[in-house]
């Protein structure tokens, strides 16, 4: 009887430990549910990707539908080639556009897609032609300061 009670508490202890791990993985961490779905890859060239990183979200209308797979540089044009993995159930017209946006003022950067109107869809390995680079806060601030300075001294 006593041995049974001990075994029961040990079993309970092991279950509690595994439950704690499950809670950490599911509730605290972000298990990638996206891995479950099949994806297709498209590329997009950007002049400047800012601080976009691999695994950053790809969204349409703010909803996550994929993620950034790779970021490389074209050795000829020196533009950044961003490869996006998009869930198969979402098809996009060939003239869709991609832009790099920032969540909040200083948040992480992600790729936002806007669907176009073409009848033909992007295929695996396809390329998004219309892109908008990341907005870099420092550049905007410096432009603003320069234009202010220009106004103040009567030039411009």
């Amino acid at each position: 009887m006593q041995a049974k009670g001990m075994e029961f508490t040990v079993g309970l202890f092991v279950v509690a430990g595994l439950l704690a791990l499950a809670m950490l993985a599911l509730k605290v961490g972000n298990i990638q549910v996206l891995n479950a779905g099949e994806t297709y890859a498209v590329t997009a060239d950007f002049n400047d990707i800012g601080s976009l990183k691999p695994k950053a979200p790809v969204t349409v209308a703010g909803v996550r539908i994929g993620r950034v797979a790779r970021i490389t540089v074209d050795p000829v044009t020196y533009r950044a080639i961003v490869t996006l993995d998009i869930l198969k159930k979402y098809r996009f017209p060939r003239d869709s556009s991609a832009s790099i946006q920032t969540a909040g003022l200083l948040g992480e950067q992600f790729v936002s897609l806007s669907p176009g109107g073409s009848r033909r869809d992007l295929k695996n390995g396809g390329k998004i032609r219309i892109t908008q680079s990341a907005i870099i806060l420092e550049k905007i601030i410096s432009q603003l300061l320069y234009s202010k300075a220009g106004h103040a001294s009567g030039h411009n």
Partner: protein
Amino acid sequence: MSWDLGISGLGRRVIGGVGRLGRATLFLARLAPALGVALARARLIVQQLYMTGVLTLVIVLVSGAFVGMILALQGYNTLVRYDAQSSLGLLVALSLTRELGPVLTALLFAGRAGSALTAEIGLMKATEQLDGMEMMAVDPLPRVVAPRFWAGWIAVPLLAMIFSAVGILGAYVVAVGDLGLDGGVFWSQMQSGVSVTNDIMGGLVKSVVFGFVVSWIAVFEGYDAKPTSEGVSRATTRTVVSSSLAILALDFIMTAFMLRGL
């Protein structure tokens, strides 16, 4: 010529330390085959899991909850200066899963269960129970030492996960109940910033290593203790001191590797 004596003393200590490390490693090599044998008698391991794991649960639960609540209070106090208190959940979760959960659990385990393991095995040796077993052709390594080693090794990672989970719940209670943070933001910030593969698995790997090292030190010190009451008390102290130092040093090394990548 007292400086000369000092240097000799230092040399003696270093040689002694290296000797202990060598004996501990030889002991582990002798223990390794016994570990396999012990797995076949799981009942003994379950018994020891009760002694080491379940009985350590209370102190781990209480410390985990308090550490989580303290982290929430301290973190809030700093973050609020930068108007970044929404990241409190992330701060608490990362601190607990990556560092405090594995390290504090291992330190508590060394003090609560490791010392008891050493004292038990040391006393068995002092009262010649181990010799008695050998006399009856029962090898004490698989019968006495291996189940305790397994139990410690299994218990530490489980306790560390429980520590982190309870700590996060404790932080949630303080952050949402007392400090007035939004519960949804608390969890969503955490989920966006904690990586399962890097942070949670990294913490798990650490606690598995700590469990191995603490159990190893505890059973070795017990087995190696001088068979006197003074020898057992010294061995018990050494278990706590060397485990704590080993945990912190290993933690530094593993953290450096994990943060920089191999």
